[in-house]
Each structure stands twice: as structure tokens, then as C-alpha cells.
């Protein structure tokens, strides 16, 4: 992990209050010095896992509806982080937002809202123009199209914004609490709690609302859902709004947590979150949440107890073992039931 450079964050956000405490951030970051403490790694793992889970939901939602792996989804993570950064910087110019605690909270709420909506709209546009025309084409075609969109977005960010890491400032004071020997930062708490709230909202939406039921029906039998009166194209568009919106939020969290963002920041989390979705049982929302948290925890524990360098090898090794015993994923239906 590269340590964030906060030396220039005051330049970036001009009227920013002197609140950029880089030292506080590193306290709670992934590679902790408190190796002996499992609680520490659990909190680190949940923080990381929350980001994976949010991103994994987008893969699983789209797969559930279209049986398609949206390879461009990793770029929603990046796009959300960039929009989040620019929104944060823009709003921070307005004195009101940095004048008090509640105003700062409002600033962050608006930042998330704007970035999530913008990323959601990007998702809808991608579906409309890159995937929908290929809906009846052979399965490989939309996959290639997705890879194209992914490369396009990465290169756009690289060429039009920057090829280097951009610092992502934190406008509030990150405090660290010592709980049972573990250092827990307010940043981690914020990320974990917000992630869980977003998941609960999604879960309630899908299981309790009319539109959520239409989404589930479409994923179980698209033609039959159409016969019930469900407008399939609207459901697909909705899916391509929700997934990217959540992925975008995860991107902002990543920026806040690690202190910087980069044009290719989506790649590794994208692969890991896709894996998390598969582990949970692709197409299954709760599976994606479970898989995300599980991967985050495994990775953190492996980094702490075995080796930082081998953490991915170990985490993925365990996941492969899981898949050998449960090929459909932890919460997925077995293949025979699917017919």
C-alpha cells in the first residue's frame, strides 16, 4: 500500500480548514502495526470488505438480470471516486460547508449523493449504448463491449485528468479509538456503518417494494416478468443505475480511506469484488455482501498473521477451496436447481 501524501491537500482545497491529518489516517489503515490483535484485523477487514461488498453488488445485480459479467463495473469505482473528489473540492469552496460540524456532514452527504447519482447515470448510459444494442448478439459480444468501455473510461481519466495519483483530502478530523487493544478510526466506523446502511436499503428495496419485486422476477424469468407487465428495459436500466451508484460510493470510501485515487484504481478491487460475488453465489445479493466481507476479512487476517506479500494468494486460495466444495457459491443455488 502506498502511503498517501497529504502535503498538498491545502493547495487542492483552497479554503479548507487545517484538518488534513494524514497521521490520523494511517493509524487506522489496512497495514496495522498491531499484529498480535485479531480485533484490529477484524475491523480492518470489515472496512475493506465493505468496499468489496458494495462493488460486488453491482456485478451480482447485473449478472442476475442479464447473465452478463459487466467488466466495466470496476471503472464505476474509479468514476465515483473522481466525481466524489471534484464534488468535495467544489463544495468546499463554499464557506458555509466548512463552517460547522453539521454543515460538513451535509457536504459529505451531498458529495455521496451527487457522485452516486452521476455514477448511476453513467451506468445507465453504458447499458443503453454499449450493451443494449448487443442484447441478442452472441454472449461474447457484450463482454468485449464491456472491456472496451472499461479501457475507454480508464484512458479518459488518464488523459483528461491525470496519469498519477491524486490526493483525496479528508475534511474532518479522523479520531482513533482504542477498543480492547485495537485501534479503530472514526473513518473505519464511518465506512462500515455507511456500507451496512446502504446494503440494508438495497435489501429492503429488493425484497419489499414493487419495483424490487419486478427486479427479482426479471432475474428469475425475464419473459415471464414481461408477461406480468414488467417493463424489462426499465428494470435493466434500474439495475444499471443501482449497481454503479453503489460501486461509486465504494470508490469514494477507497479515496477517503487510502487518501488518494488513480485512473486505474478500479482494477484490483474490481477483480476482488467480482470474486467476492462469485464466492457468495453470483446473482445473489446477500451472497455478494457476504462474499465481500469474507474476502476483506481473509485478506486482512492473512496480511497480519501470515504475510502481507502473500495475503492475496492466501485469501484467494481459501476462496478456491470454498468453490471446490460449493461451486455455486456460498448462497448460490446449486446448478441442478437452476433449471
Amino acid at each position, binding site marked *: 500500500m502506498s502511503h498517501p501524501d497529504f502535503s498538498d491537500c491545502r493547495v487542492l482545497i483552497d479554503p479548507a480548514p487545517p484538518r488534513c491529518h494524514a497521521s490520523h489516517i494511517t493509524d487506522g489503515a489496512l497495514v496495522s502495526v498491531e499484529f498480535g490483535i485479531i480485533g484490529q484485523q477484524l475491523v480492518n477487514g470489515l472496512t475493506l470488505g465493505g468496499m468489496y461488498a458494495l462493488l460486488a453488488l453491482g456485478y451480482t445485480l447485473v449478472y442476475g438480470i442479464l447473465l452478463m459479467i459487466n467488466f466495466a463495473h470496476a471503472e464505476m469505482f474509479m468514476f465515483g471516486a473522481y466525481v466524489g473528489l471534484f464534488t468535495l473540492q467544489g463544495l468546499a469552496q463554499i464557506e458555509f460547508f466548512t463552517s460547522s460540524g453539521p454543515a460538513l456532514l451535509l457536504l459529505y452527504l451531498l458529495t455521496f449523493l451527487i457522485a452516486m447519482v452521476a455514477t448511476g447515470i453513467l451506468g445507465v448510459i453504458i447499458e443503453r449504448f454499449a450493451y443494449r444494442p448487443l442484447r441478442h448478439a452472441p454472449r461474447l459480444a457484450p463482454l468485449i463491449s464491456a472491456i472496451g468501455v472499461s479501457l475507454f473510461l480508464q484512458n479518459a481519466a488518464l488523459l483528461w485528468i491525470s496519469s498519477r495519483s491524486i490526493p483525496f483530502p479528508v475534511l474532518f478530523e479522523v479520531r482513533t479509538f482504542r477498543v480492547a487493544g485495537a485501534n479503530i478510526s472514526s473513518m473505519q466506523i464511518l465506512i462500515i456503518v455507511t456500507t451496512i446502511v446502504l446494503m440494508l436499503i438495497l435489501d429492503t428495496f429488493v425484497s419489499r417494494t*414493487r419495483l424490487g*419485486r*419486478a427486479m*427479482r*422476477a426479471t432475474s*428469475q*424469468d425475464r*419473459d*415471464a*416478468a*414481461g*408477461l*406480468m*407487465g*414488467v*417493463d*424489462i428495459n426499465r428494470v435493466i436500466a434500474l439495475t444499471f443505475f443501482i449497481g454503479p451508484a453503489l460501486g461509486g460510493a465504494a470508490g469514494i470510501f477507497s479515496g477517503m480511506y487510502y487518501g488518494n485515487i488513480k485512473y486505474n484504481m478500479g482494477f484490483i478491487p474490481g477483480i476482488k469484488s467480482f470474486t467476492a460475488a462469485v464466492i457468495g453465489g453470483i446473482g445473489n445479493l446477500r451472497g455478494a455482501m457476504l462474499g465481500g466481507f469474507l474476502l476483506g476479512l481473509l485478506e486482512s487476517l492473512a496480511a497480519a498473521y501470515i504475510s502481507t506479500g502473500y495475503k492475496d494468494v492466501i485469501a484467494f486460495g481459501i476462496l478456491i477451496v470454498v468453490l471446490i466444495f460449493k461451486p455455486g457459491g456460498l448462497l448460490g*443455488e446449486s446448478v441442478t*436447481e437452476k433449471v
Partner: protein
Amino acid sequence: MLRVDNIHTFYGKIEALKGISIEVNEGEIVTLIGANGAGKSTTLKTISGQLHPLHGTIEFLGETISGMPSHNVTAKQVIQVPEGRRIFPQMTVRENLDMGAFLRTDKDGVAEDMKKVLELFPRLRERLSQKGGTLSGGEQQMLAIARGMMASPKLLMLDEPSMGLAPVIVDVIFETIKRLNEAGITILLVEQNAAMALQTAHRGYVLETGSIALQGSGAELLRNEQVRKTYLGEV
């Protein structure tokens, strides 16, 4: 009520329907019989908007519905109970029934219809919170019909409702179809079980490789020599 006028429907370059004309009057049970692959399901799918005819028109209550996407046809209360039941396997029986009423805004009417279909199919009432995929074949067919009823259909189109069911259950299904019709629902019934379909229906059409070969009242077709040979298994 329904007027299908000379429709041609293609799967790619394959012409599955080669100019089909059908009429269904209000209050009727009309059946469409024919061998496997004759184009029965294609006809229903073209009416319900899952497929679109290249030529020809479909009118329902004087309004052209050909070319509409299936959710708009459903909004006209032209309801298809698809071949193979196609219930939502991961949803409970109750959720499946709710999906049937997806477009309805009259809450009282929906509650009323829910009561009615559960009276009609008491076995579904016992299984309301069971997942659709865990029901037996006969129960799934009942659920598929009940789900269609929840849409408050003006025209109910059933695609091979007796397929793969035990004879006792087949009797129940046909009995139900008659009762629904007596309650005022117009029915277009696709069947391979030609004998039972023709006995139940007022009128029928015989479909052969994408064209109408014969048509007439149920009784007429039952007496027709060609029908007896080809579809009723008589020598």
C-alpha cells in the same frame, strides 16, 4: 374481441407463422390445436407481444396491439399463461400471485381476486409461503393459472395447461377453464390434448406447419374425419 389478421412471424429467416387469421368473440372458449411445432406457441407469443409479426395485424377490442411490447399488451388485460408454467421459482406462492397483479392499482379488486383464486385452488392457500419452485407440476400449473387470474384478464390465453400432468389433474384444469369461462372470461386455449380441448371449446382452429388447416365448432371438428385420424388417434 380479438382479431388476428393474416400474421406472419419469423424466427430469424424461418417463417413460423405463414399467414394466420383467428377470431375470438367475447365469452367464447376458442382452442388452437395442432402437432408439436405447428406454431401454436408462436401464435400466442405474437398476440402477447413477446414476438412481433412481420406482416399482418392483431386487434383487441378494436385497438391494434401488434407491435406493442408484452408489458403493454398485458396492460390491455390480454393475459398469457405461458407454456411450461414459467412461475418464479424463488418467489413464494403469494409473491407469484402478487406479480400477476403487477400492473393493477385497484387494491380492493386485487384483494378480492386473491380471495377468489384461493377459493378456486385451495391447495395454493395451504402453500402461500412456500417457494414456487418447490411445488408439484400440477400445483405449479394451478399457480400459473391463478397468477394469470390475478391480472383480471379480459382474454386469457393458456398454452398447453395439461402438459405433463396426471389425468386426474388434467380433469381439474379443464374443469377450472370451464368455470373461469362461465365467470365471464374469454379464453384462447392451446392444447395438444385435442379431444379434451375440442370437448371444452366452443370453436377451434387446427394449425399445421404455420397455417390454419381447418376451423369450426368444437363438435364439428370432433366429427371431422381428418381431425379424428390425425389428432384423436383413430384409424
